[in-house]
């Protein structure tokens, strides 16, 4: 453990080493289904699912079998060398994507797919310069994606950037309307805002924004990295409002948690008149993952499994149970939980402060449940996520809810205001001396 932390501190990320040391984080080792196992043998019910990548649970046997067989025979070629698995996957994906989202470009990570989508948008609307995105949104952290990242504290250290973006409050149609003009290239949105808050927009929001975009002649890019492949109760969240975006990004869950991969889907209506040079500007150089036969066959197998297990319908059913259960627990602890948010198995509880979130996350861990920490140290009232694999059972949901109730009851022994005051220090935690932090952690969180 010390060796690991030392490796993180010296060769990876000193601030992450600090966070993990204070939280006495376990070392991940293996998993099966909804259960994650640490190196010390302790087992955790995984209600974080790696922020969504383990949508099929850990080590889904179908995907695992296909991936291992492929790895043993033919793992990959350099990007740009054609192989059959890539085409098979693109056909698979286009088959489940809504409407005329028929062209698929593969990327190695969600942020790389966002970069491709932005290049496609700029190519489709030459002469326009400005992007519109939501405040508090999250679309990755590479240079171009950074320009549309709605969490200011993650952008500011690198500003000024080169791409012009306007940020609007999420869920507010009028704000989008006011932000659009003849210079707008595209509006980029998550169907449900992630990034530490988890905000479900009012009904009809996406459809109204799609309509505004059409009239302003700009594109609508929807980032389904978190919501795709059944998480919110439909295969893609946009289906709920019958919206077919011009560009769509998917990633988490795509390979059933086996290999990193993302994809950008381009609607036929956007690319109808593109020549080879335009495609080259958008798709070249091909992402390294394009050459990964292993990633492509894993993704095809995972998509088949999502369909075979009817995971969108399961997420809708179990999501209703989870959200109802969270509401009951929230009612019992009004001092701590401000609201219950979510749709399907993308659920969370809004807490009174960042420190309260941290404390509950740790207490849940103590009780054998891993939840999704918002990782947003600047959120005033962050949302702790309940993001189980989509194969989660009703019994497991009840177990997690009981652990939450128990954690909140334990927390209630300290006056909430103490946490509020201490939470003001959160943005400075990486500058404070470690002994002070250790003491605070022991007093408030242990």
């Amino acid at each position: 453990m010390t060796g690991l932390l030392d490796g993180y501190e010296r060769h990876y990320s000193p601030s992450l080493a600090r966070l993990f040391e204070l939280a006495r984080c376990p070392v991940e080792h293996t998993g099966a289904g909804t259960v994650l196992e640490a190196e010390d043998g302790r087992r955790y019910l995984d209600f974080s699912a790696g922020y969504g990548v383990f949508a099929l649970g850990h080590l889904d046997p179908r995907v695992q079998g296909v991936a291992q067989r492929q790895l043993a025979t033919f793992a990959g070629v350099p990007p740009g060398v054609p192989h059959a698995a890539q085409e098979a996957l693109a056909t698979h994906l286009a088959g489940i994507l809504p409407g005329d989202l028929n062209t698929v470009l593969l990327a190695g990570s969600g942020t790389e797919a966002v970069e491709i989508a932005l290049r496609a948008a700029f190519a489709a609307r030459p002469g326009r310069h400005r992007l519109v995105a939501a405040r508090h949104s999250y679309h990755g952290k590479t240079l171009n994606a950074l320009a549309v990242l709605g969490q200011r504290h993650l952008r500011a250290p690198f500003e000024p950037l080169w791409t012009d973006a306007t940020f609007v409050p999420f869920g507010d149609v009028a704000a989008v309307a006011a932000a659009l003009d003849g210079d707008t290239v595209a509006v980029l949105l998550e169907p449900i805002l992630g990034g530490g808050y988890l905000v479900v927009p009012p009904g009809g929001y996406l459809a109204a924004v799609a309509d505004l975009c059409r009239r302003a002649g700009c594109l609508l890019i929807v980032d389904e990295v978190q919501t795709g492949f059944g998480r919110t109760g439909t295969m893609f969240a946009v289906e709920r409002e019958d919206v077919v975006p011009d560009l769509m990004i998917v990633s988490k869950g795509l390979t059933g948690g086996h290999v990193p991969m993302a994809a950008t889907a381009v609607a036929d209506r956007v690319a109808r008149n593109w020549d080879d040079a335009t495609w080259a500007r958008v798709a070249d150089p091909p992402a390294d993952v394009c050459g990964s036969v292993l990633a492509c066959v894993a993704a095809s197998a995972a998509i088949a499994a999502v369909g075979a297990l009817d995971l969108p319908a399961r997420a809708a059913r179990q999501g209703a149970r989870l959200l109802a259960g969270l509401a009951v627990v929230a009612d019992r602890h009004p001092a701590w939980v401000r609201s219950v948010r979510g749709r399907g198995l993308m659920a969370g509880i809004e807490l009174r402060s960042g420190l309260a979130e941290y404390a509950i996350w740790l207490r849940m861990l103590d009780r054998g449940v891993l939840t999704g920490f918002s990782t947003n140290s600047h959120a005033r009232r962050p949302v702790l996520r309940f993001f189980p694999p989509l194969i989660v059972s009703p019994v497991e949901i009840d177990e997690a809810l009981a652990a939450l109730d128990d954690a909140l009851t334990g927390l209630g022994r300290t006056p909430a205001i103490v946490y509020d005051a201490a939470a003001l220090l959160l943005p400075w935690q990486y500058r404070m001396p470690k002994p002070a932090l250790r003491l605070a952690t022991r007093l408030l969180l242990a």
Partner: protein
Amino acid sequence: MGSVVDTQRVVRPPGRGYPPDLGIVTGAHGATFDLAAGGSAVDLAGGGWGYGDPLVVAAVAAQLARLPLSTRSFLSRPLADAVRRLAELSPPGLDVCYLCNSGAEALDGAIKLAKGRHPRRRTLVTASRLPHHLPVTQRTVPYGDAGALREALTRDVFALVVEPVLTTAGVVVPPPGYLVAAREACDRSGAVLIADETVTGLGRTGERFAWSGPDVAVFGSTLGGGVLPLGAYVARKRLNDRVYRHRTPVLHASTTGGNPASCAAALATLALLAERDVTGNARRLGAVLAAWLDELGRSFPGVVADPVAAGLLGSVTLPDVGWAAAVQQETLRQGAVVLRQGRMLAIRPPLRIRRPELDRGLAALRTALAKQP
């Protein structure tokens, strides 16, 4: 939905200089592709590590069966081991690693780190190479020209990106003193010096790193051992600390970057790099490659010009683009894949290529040249 199969269109990436009629590759082992069209072809184009390396495959298979991707909520042993090993093998002073899913993403991360060091500066200088459509104000200077480089590094420049050996327009070994001049110019202006070693790094030039002088070195697919997509940058600790140490760890991070399976691939590859004589192999076969290319120059005067080799990196220049395309095409028919960059043909075999494969591939190129009218 789903029924409109006939409108589905797959954009196959435009191949980055591969022969247009390569067709589908159905398998790869050592340094050889199996072709759907029948037969096989020696890969002299893909760079990287090599295909189906049993030790890398075994390491990835074991991790894949245990935990392929990370929860990102717990500590990861493969990640800690991989960054420690990569830092140990990197040039002295380069200590902090960032792992991601492609060389392009790693280069992007290195440029972001430099921007974080000098947020108010706006311009990036590159020596003859535009990094993959970055949304960055770029100033390009001719490769190898130290004077131009010094002149370009004004106070508005936050970083210089340079390949230790140019690989994007044939192979160009810089004149002596060029990289030292780059270092001095960056020291003077404060710009962060980024070495793009995505092609040259991890043994290809006969050294583990083509250059030990940068502030950040960027590595690409070689690190994944031909099994998984992988990129990484390694930076000076002081530089990384200044930008990231006292800020939230999510300021630069990704859900899948440095995932356990990729780290297992990197660890196996780095172990082979340290224990087997991979750089020695690149040097020895590099000499073979140089001899072949020189011979081509002598045998086909007026056709093959400027043979250059630097370790397992080589190029020749043909009279025009048409010539280069025709020779590339015929080389494929003869059983080898070379990369075309304008009127140049680049030779970039996988690092683990063996002598017989290399000779077979280069013989195919020679036959193709001999067959031109």
